[in-house]
């Protein structure tokens, strides 16, 4: 049975990775999960310098989901290079580094710093507010998506995944823009912007007022968007958004995702990634599927 997949020349032993921000740098979950069993570890977003993040409360539960407004707290690329890359390299897994920034220069600085580092791929989080364009996220303007993609591609030594924001009217347009900019792959979806009100205190549940909605509640939206993007561009897709079980993961794969990422489920069940992987293999055995590629984008139009 073959579960290995290839994206932009990188071979992953299986299609399961982690959604950025839900798995730390892998270290936090290495007591629970043998990281060598994962196709890849996708790290928490790394910026050029340490970011302290938002005030608390940063977390609010919603029906079937959760809102977070961590504010991309991270130790910056220097600590990441010294501490996290050597840690992850002890394991037989690929490393996808998620990169955050407030300006295109911020992103490029991290990309440059990682150029000679032993990491396999870069994933660019373009849901960050762009300080030079009045705070609108890079990922909400196709012109900016293409610009940032092409500027990163010129400098990056590793293949580049652009992580798309779902907070747009037409996700396919953003995917095409990233493809035009030279992206090697796409990942989607990031969180949906939401809000929760604490009615007893008559205030926002999150100190940041708004937060990113994740978890099972967003899965149907994510599957729909993966399907739309798979039909709009020729790039490989890493699908994510509320994946908790193998059945969830298989929906994304059939919709067109070459790999899938487990996110919020890690918080609920630290061994969720392994359970999703085992479940995919079990499904393949039961259905007589010899190669995972038989499932990727296999849905039939009625």
């Amino acid at each position, binding site marked *: 049975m073959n579960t290995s997949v290839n994206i932009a020349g990188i071979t992953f032993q299986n299609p399961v990775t982690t959604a950025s*921000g*839900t*798995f*730390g740098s892998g270290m*936090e*979950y290495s*007591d*629970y999960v*043998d990281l060598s069993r994962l196709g890849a570890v996708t790290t*928490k977003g790394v910026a050029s310098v*340490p*970011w*302290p*993040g938002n005030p*608390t*409360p*940063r*977390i*609010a*539960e919603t*029906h*079937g*989901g*959760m809102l*977070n407004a*961590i504010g991309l*707290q*991270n*130790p*910056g690329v220097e*600590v990441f290079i010294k501490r996290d890359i050597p840690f992850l390299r002890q394991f037989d897994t690929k490393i996808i580094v998620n990169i955050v920034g407030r300006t295109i220069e911020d992103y490029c600085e991290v990309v440059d710093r990682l150029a000679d580092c032993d990491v396999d791929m870069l994933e660019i989080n373009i849901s960050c507010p762009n300080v030079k364009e009045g705070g609108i996220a890079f990922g909400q303007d196709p012109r900016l998506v293409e610009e940032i993609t092409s500027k990163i591609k010129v400098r990056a030594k590793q293949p580049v995944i652009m992580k798309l924001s779902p907070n747009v009217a037409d996700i396919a347009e953003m995917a095409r823009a990233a493809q035009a900019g030279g992206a090697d792959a796409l990942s989607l979806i990031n969180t949906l912007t939401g809000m929760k009100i604490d009615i007893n205190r008559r205030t926002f549940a999150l100190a940041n007022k708004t937060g990113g909605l994740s*978890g*099972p509640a967003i899965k149907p939206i994510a599957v729909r968007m993966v399907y739309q993007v798979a039909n709009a561009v020729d790039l490989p897709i890493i699908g994510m958004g509320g994946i908790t079980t193998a059945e969830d993961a298989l929906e994304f794969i059939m919709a067109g995702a070459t790999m899938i990422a487990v996110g*919020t489920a*890690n*918080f*609920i*069940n*630290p*061994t969720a990634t392994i359970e999703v992987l085992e479940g995919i293999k079990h499904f393949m055995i039961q259905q007589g599927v010899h190669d995972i590629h038989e499932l990727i984008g296999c849905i039939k139009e009625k």
Partner: protein
Amino acid sequence: MTSTVRKKGIVIQNTKLAKDIYSLWLEAPFIADSARPGQFVSLYCKDGSRLLPRPISICEINKEKGRIRLVFRVVGKGTEEFSYLQEKDTLDLMGPLGNGFNLEGKKALIIGGGIGIPPLLELAKKLNCEKQVVLGFRDDIYMEEEFEAFGKVYISTEDGSKGVKGNVLDAIRYHQLEADIIYACGPKPMLKGIKDYAIEHGIKAQLSLEERMACGVGACLGCVCQSRETDMHTHVKNKRICKDGPVFYAEEVEL
């Protein structure tokens, strides 16, 4: 690989102690084996729409029988679900999590406010020194007798219905209590008051903090508090309450 795993516990007993306050004894040897006072567990709801585990501190540990006791307040649908648990019911939990208290000092002031009181019981049991206990309530009193087995108990109530009218610091001042170590758990304003009091009087203090959490294992960075020194994880000044805490020395944290 680890001692903290998500496993099933069995309900031994669930009783109501006061309005919205419940005492839950669970058979959970995987937690009781290694748990220390001041640590907490993540308790999972059966209703799948409530994803996140509820962090609840451990009130008592019975290693011999493999049991732990949790005393919690009903504050929402998740804790309401736990309040309905009955003998022999099972539920998922993970732990023990967090660092717990350091047992130290010769004369201790153990200070609890509201639902911050329960985790201090196991501490009072384990501390081997002179102990004074100060418990602050809004109105309903609970667990007072249980603490009396381990030291003299002083009460404060907001409405003055029992003990000193006011908060725990009012009771400490009224009774002129002295100590070389303070252990405290309760709402943030209370902890801030105790921190200032401890610094003013040159008393070492360990404070147990709480915050909204998601993962409980230090990954999501949801439950941070501001720290005086740069933290080991992010190299900013944010310590993770679930992993670096929940117990901090007063001078470590900005409240």
